[in-house]
């Protein structure tokens, strides 16, 4: 029940995105705001880079002993009264959640934002089983009523402008008076809040994701800026946490370390507004909280990643810094990537989840500028991992034929320097002669990918190596 992917049509998606004026304005906002915000808070913290090293090490350590920590988590969470479920596949995770909802005769289900829920296609599955889950994160709610995927892993509706959201609210909220002024963002928020408040109070089951699962205490942790996660988790009589296996950290202290890099990397906040640690269901003397607490831990291909070349990707804490700093993301936005996870982290993760045959464009659509790796709070070598995917494609002969043939021809000469020198010298002379008038080409056969958008500077004439040898130098 996972989402239909348009990743194979990445190029067409990108083309459409580039000429969408509203989207471009929204992306301009990301590009001109978030990198600066991150830099500001990072500069305020002299130990920020040391914290990133610590964050990487905590994650690496946890991944090395993941089985141990998962078992510990299960034991501790169970001891606190939570029910822990392990799901190997996305389908299994969805089924477990739907069964819990069914057992409790859930009529209203609220949901906090969960990327793994997007990954498993949980909403679609629940709807197909007769439930009507309601997203409670504002951005996630907006994309739910638009029947879209999130375009960013922490700001799901960042591709939209205010007027588009107003139009959606007027379309969906049937009781919204026509004359109500929704010009101000606060008015939009109030409108969403009024609608969602009723759902919070009516909900039988609340489903959230988790930023961390803590082995030491059996707790699930979520951070939000809206507090919707807390209302989703504490008001209904059943709270279900959906989280993937790599969300585990050993201790509360480890979580505290990771928290110090999470919000700073994500939104440029020192901390998110709400951080909540959920441990077990309501105890007899608790004033509130769910009667039942379920934690569904999803593998969905991650164990295979753990044993292979993409293991580093499992350190990801889903902060979105790599998206916020990616010039390709800034150009085309998240939907162009065609599935749940966009940007550099998506370019590595998506092929693992839906296959490189479908997601082949994603790791290729990068200049390897390295900005993502430079800002990653857990130091994932994203370009290196994208290159691994390119190697897989090359080995499996999935890359385009023209590209492969060109590469082969070039490699033939590049591996034979003398032949290369003899072959390139006259070619450059010819090109230089044709280009001598302008010093550049506006059009050149076989180079239209280049000359479609820019001129191609002409060569000067004799190659360096020819001139060097003419001067009799070694």
């Amino acid at each position, binding site marked *: 029940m996972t989402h239909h992917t348009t990743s194979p049509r990445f190029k067409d998606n990108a083309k459409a995105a580039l000429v969408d004026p509203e989207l471009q304005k929204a992306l301009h906002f990301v590009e001109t705001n978030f990198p600066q915000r991150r830099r500001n808070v990072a500069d305020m913290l002299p130990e920020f880079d040391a914290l990133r090293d610590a964050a990487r090490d905590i994650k690496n350590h946890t991944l090395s002993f993941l089985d141990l920590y998962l078992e510990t988590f299960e034991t501790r969470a169970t001891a606190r009264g939570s029910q822990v479920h392990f799901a190997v596949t996305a389908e299994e995770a969805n089924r477990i959640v739907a069964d819990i909802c069914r057992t409790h005769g859930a009529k209203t289900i609220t949901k906090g934002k969960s990327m793994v829920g997007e990954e498993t296609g949980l909403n679609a599955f629940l709807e197909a089983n007769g439930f009507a889950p309601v997203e409670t994160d504002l951005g996630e709610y907006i994309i739910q009523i638009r029947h879209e995927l999130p375009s960013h892993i922490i700001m799901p509706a960042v591709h939209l402008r205010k007027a588009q959201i107003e139009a959606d609210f007027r379309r969906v909220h049937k009781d919204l008076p026509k004359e109500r002024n929704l010009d101000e963002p606060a008015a939009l928020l109030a409108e969403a809040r009024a609608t969602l408040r009723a759902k919070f109070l009516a909900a039988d089951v609340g489903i959230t994701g988790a930023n961390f699962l803590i082995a030491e205490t059996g707790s699930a942790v979520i951070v939000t800026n809206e507090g919707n996660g807390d209302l989703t988790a504490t008001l209904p009589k059943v709270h279900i946490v959906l989280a993937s296996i790599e969300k585990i950290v050993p201790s509360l202290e480890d979580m505290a370390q990771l928290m110090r890099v999470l919000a700073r990397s994500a939104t440029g906040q020192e901390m998110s507004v709400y951080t909540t640690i959920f441990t077990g269901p309501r105890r007899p003397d608790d004033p509130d909280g769910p009667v039942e607490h379920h934690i569904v831990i999803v593998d969905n291909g991650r164990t295979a990643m753990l044993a292979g070349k993409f293991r580093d990707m499992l350190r990801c804490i889903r902060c979105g810094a790599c998206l916020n700093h990616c*010039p390709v993301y800034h150009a085309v936005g998240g939907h162009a990537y065609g599935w749940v996870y966009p940007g550099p982290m998506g370019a590595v993760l998506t092929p693992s989840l839906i296959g490189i045959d479908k997601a082949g464009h994603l790791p290729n659509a990068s*200049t390897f500028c390295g900005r993502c790796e430079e800002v990653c709070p857990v130091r994932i070598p994203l370009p290196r991992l994208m290159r691994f995917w390119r190697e897989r494609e090359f*080995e499996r002969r999935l890359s385009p034929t023209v590209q492969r043939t060109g590469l082969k021809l070039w490699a033939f000469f590049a591996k034979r320097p003398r032949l290369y020198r003899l072959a390139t010298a006259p070619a450059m002379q010819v090109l230089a002669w044709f280009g001598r008038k302008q010093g*550049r080409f506006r059009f050149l056969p076989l180079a239209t990918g280049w000359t479609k958008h820019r001129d191609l500077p*002409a060569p000067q004439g004799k190659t360096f190596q020819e001139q060097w040898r003419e001067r009799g130098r070694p």
Partner: protein
Amino acid sequence: MAGSGKRVGLLVTCLVDLIRPSIGFAAVKLLERAGCVVEVPQQSCCGQPAFNSGDRATARAIAEQVIAAFEHCDYIVAPSGSCAGQVRVHYPELFEGDPNWQPRADAFAAKTYELMQFLVGVLGVTGTEARYEGAATYHDSCSSLRECGVREEPRKLLGSVEGLTLKDLSDSETCCGFGGTFCVKYPDISNAMVTKKAANVAATGADMLLGGDLGCLMNIAGKLAREGRTLAVRHVAEVLAGQLDQPPIGAPTEREARSAAPEASR
């Protein structure tokens, strides 16, 4: 002199070799002026196009050939952060775990430098006698910046060029959209990126754009020319060496420009 007698192998880089040899000669002049003995072993390319296209076997074969041709030198220097980065960062990665090649690749990587980094960081060059009357701006190429850690070196040397004013380029650390084969595999996205870059370059008011990587410079120069902007684009080595006799990147020679101009405008 700091570099006296040091044997430097010039990794010309394929783009400089084929498109703009004057950058190579400017690099030679800078190195020789600092006392180095420069040699140019027969070469083709560092192998990066193969490496980034997923063809590891070819990348490795080319890397072996480069190491064999250059490793007798004291240092290997490239007028490009991209090619120097390929050697410094990725050659060791290519031979990871190979008992014969890994030590050679590691040693080779450790003595390979981007030109500015070598001049300032290794040779301790602090200035140049070059002159340039005008305002220039500088674009940091991604590999220079992030793989080689070059940021202050070119600015320091440019600061010593008499008559030159260096203007800050906003987003100088953002990719120009070249990305090797990326620019032809995803021309529309590359175009969006270089369009922003060209606008930022023009907004500085400088009359010349400088950089340390010919790929990026060709990309930006090509865009500036297509948009009808008249900024000169050059490799930083050309200015530092005072070798400005060749027309800027993508510009015609003066003689050709004169003869191409219509009668009336003469």
